[in-house]
């Protein structure tokens, strides 16, 4: 595993030594051969059921589920905050489970049922969670919001189904809709505007009504 050590130095180490000596040449770039001009990207067909509608797509194999939604189906409600599974802005519900759509390739979802924020409700017919977010001002810039709402809806479902979390006192008991429980389960959804306290109120509101 320590192949760099076999030569007694690492790439980084060389650079450090170099910089101490003043100007140093550095290369950054590929070592692999170029693809031939005219190569077409490798695409494959995939069928997704998004918000109840079936879509047959021919996609670049590198396309994430997130980009399939945003760039190919123009469902812009699902947001790209990091593209690395670090922020939750891209949260959608796939076959009943919330996932970060930036972390899977669209082709992995052949036949899957995807629910995005657009599938939960519309401006004229809000989902109760969307209405609660508005009432409790559970957002500011709105960029993390679709992900927060998809997560919030899914979290209440997880608690109902008894899916445990690590803040539970007793892991085999039914989880409660407590503030601590909700906060723990929602922590994969970052809101830099800091609407967390209000999001909790919105979720408690919806949980209370559906309880």
């Amino acid at each position: 595993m320590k192949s760099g050590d076999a030569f007694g130095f690492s790439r980084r180490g060389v650079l450090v030594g170099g910089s101490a000596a003043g100007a140093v040449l550095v290369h950054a770039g590929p070592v692999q051969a170029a693809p031939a001009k005219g190569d077409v990207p490798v695409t494959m067909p995939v069928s997704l059921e998004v918000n109840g509608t079936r879509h047959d797509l021919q996609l670049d194999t590198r396309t994430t589920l997130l980009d399939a939604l945003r760039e190919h189906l123009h469902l812009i409600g699902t947001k790209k905050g990091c593209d690395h599974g670090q922020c939750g802005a891209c949260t959608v519900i796939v076959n009943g489970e919330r996932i970060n759509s930036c972390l899977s390739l669209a082709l992995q979802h052949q036949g899957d049922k995807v629910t995005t924020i657009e599938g939960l409700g519309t401006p004229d017919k809000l989902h109760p969670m969307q209405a609660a977010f508005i009432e409790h001002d559970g957002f500011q810039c709105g960029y993390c919001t679709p992900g927060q709402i998809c997560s919030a809806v899914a979290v209440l479902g997880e608690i109902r189904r008894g899916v445990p979390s690590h803040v539970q006192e007793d892991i085999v008991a039914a989880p409660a809709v407590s503030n601590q429980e909700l906060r723990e389960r929602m922590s994969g959804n970052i809101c830099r505007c800091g609407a967390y306290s209000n999001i909790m109120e919105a979720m408690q509101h919806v949980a209370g009504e559906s309880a």
Partner: protein
Amino acid sequence: MKFETPAGKNPIDQLKVVGRATSRIDGRLKTTGNAPYAYEQHDVAAHQAYGFVVGAAIAKGRITAMDTTLARAAPGVVAVIGTLDHAQPLPKSRFNTAHLFGGPQVEHYHQAIALVVADSFEQARAAAALIRTDYAREPGQFDLAKAAPDAPLVPGSKGKPDVARVGDFDTAFTQAPVQLDRSYTTPDESHAMMEPHATIAAWDGDRLTVWTSNQMIAWGKASLATTLGMPPEKIRLNAPFIGGGFGGKLFIRADVVLAALGAKAAGRPVKLALTRPMMMNNTTHRPATIQRVRLGATRDGKLTAIAHSSASGDLPGGDPEAAVSQTQLLYAAPHRETFMKLAVLDLPEGNAMRAPGEAPGLMVLEMAMDEMAEKLGMDPVEFRILNDTQVDPAKPDRSFSQRHLIECLRTGAEKFGWSKRNPKPAQVREGRWLIGMGVAAGFRNNLLMKSAARIRLERGGRLTVETDMTDIGTGSYTILAQTAAEMMGVPLDAVTVKLGDSDFPASAGSGGQWGGNNSTAGLYAACVKLRAMVAQTLGLSENAHFADGKVIEGEKALPLAQAAREGPLTAEDLIEYGTLDKQYQQSTFASHFVEAAVDAYTGETRIRRMLAVCDAGRILNPKAARSQVIGAMTMGVGAALSEELAVDKRFGYFVNHDLAGYEVAVHADIPHQEVMFLDYPDDKSSPMKAKGVGELGLCGVGAAIANAIYNATGVRVRDYPITLDKHLEHLPVLA
């Protein structure tokens, strides 16, 4: 409209719509995914290609060669632009410190050096990885602690001396019976707004339109014109929705410049976003500081001497983090001294982040105040109250327009249950948890900026507001609608608000917590004009009043819509300010109270309760204003406990440049938060009598957290963020 004398009674004072807790009018769009942000405007320009930006792999030096052959040959590639295509860097606007693109010089890590445009995102990204760049690296200065001692003093602004002095600090400090002299540090911080910097650019002949994410439309348009060397009137900027900015989108960045260049080269519209891992080194950040506070007091707690100094770094030609400004105005003391030092560092550009200056400045000053209160054996709330000032300490005949800091502190103490705090640290236990309470004052100036708006009474009686003002989560859409509804006597839903377009009248924009007060005041001015036009059209005098969709004078009550029977009526005006902000110091104030629990075994901190009491003039929309404050408090939790851009001092870059490594507060970190607003409309700020509130909530909160942790543990950590490794060893031994 020129605002030169304090506002008298005006239609806003009716408070039928303004001042009421109002849900955001853009809420339905945002919560359903129907609000289009910059990268998402699929339908504004056909046939959009995708751009992918490449960043420099060194912090300082020169690019000696760039081979783009492989990238150009890669599938789907439409255009490649390398920085060496330009002999010189593109001109930069007065707002930018580092160049955004062009030329062989590398000024900071991840500075943009190339753009690949391709038919798809995946193709552009893959091709970008095929660019080979050769660099001649040069040594740089990346270590603030090393550079600070020799850093030059920052010249005083507008001919003021480098060191701002009142009285004779040195003598007073030496003679003070109780003294505190401490040094503190705050780290580099990143805005980390959730929406990455993104732009779609499209050319139509020599005209350019950019759909982008920018807080300041008019600045952005002028800056882009400078950088691209074209007349501003040929540029249109559009940003109806902005996924957070916090100062990081005050100025144009590489995304908009490269999208424009890419669209030109590709001969078709180009969309691009900076990748998350590029944002933290490519764009700006809040610079780290090394601060020193010296306080001298009498034994009964009267401050006699205050000194505050701060050193920070930036690229050549950059600005300091103005961490000492609030210290000139927050507390009374006859002898004072403040100054700043600015070192040249070759890290990415330091620039404004939410409450620049005050955020790190108060994290330090308000920790020092806590330390001094303890030395004096005084309650920290009472110590602050005793040293309140109602005038500018440097100019005692200049008073504050409004200042109710004492009431913030007293109300907060009462509401929070401050009397239950044990003044002796490390005394309160709950099982494994050490419990403490902390307080700090918040302070941030209210800035007056001219701002224009247009309002149109449409046939049928609806109103349309147009201004280039932005809504970065602040709630601009809603307060502008409230203002128009109040002024014209119509319900909120009769108003349509259009924002963020450079074709609209230029507003104050969103920054420095000046957006709310100034943009609504600009609209107020336009509404005054429209009211006159309506009254005249209806044959009424200017005494007519507007209510319930009617224009009423004496016996007459005519429908507002009647005035637009012949066609829409449009009024445009701006608010400009006289010298009321010179005659009076205009500021906003807060008290922050925090209860923290520290795990005695692990040193981990949990925030249990937070309360802010704010004195910020009239609150236009208490619902959105509260959100601004809790959001800022949340950012303050990050600043106090976890946020730090880790500097690689060998290679000169921020190592933890993504959201996994740079830790902002998440749900689990934030308890229920309480906010109270004192009701003191400020007639010297504008006809709206409002002031800024968006940054106030961040000012002081970090120190309140630090002071609560100290009260819990008895361990004083003076280097932010207060991570567990800094106090774990010294925590009290559990019985």
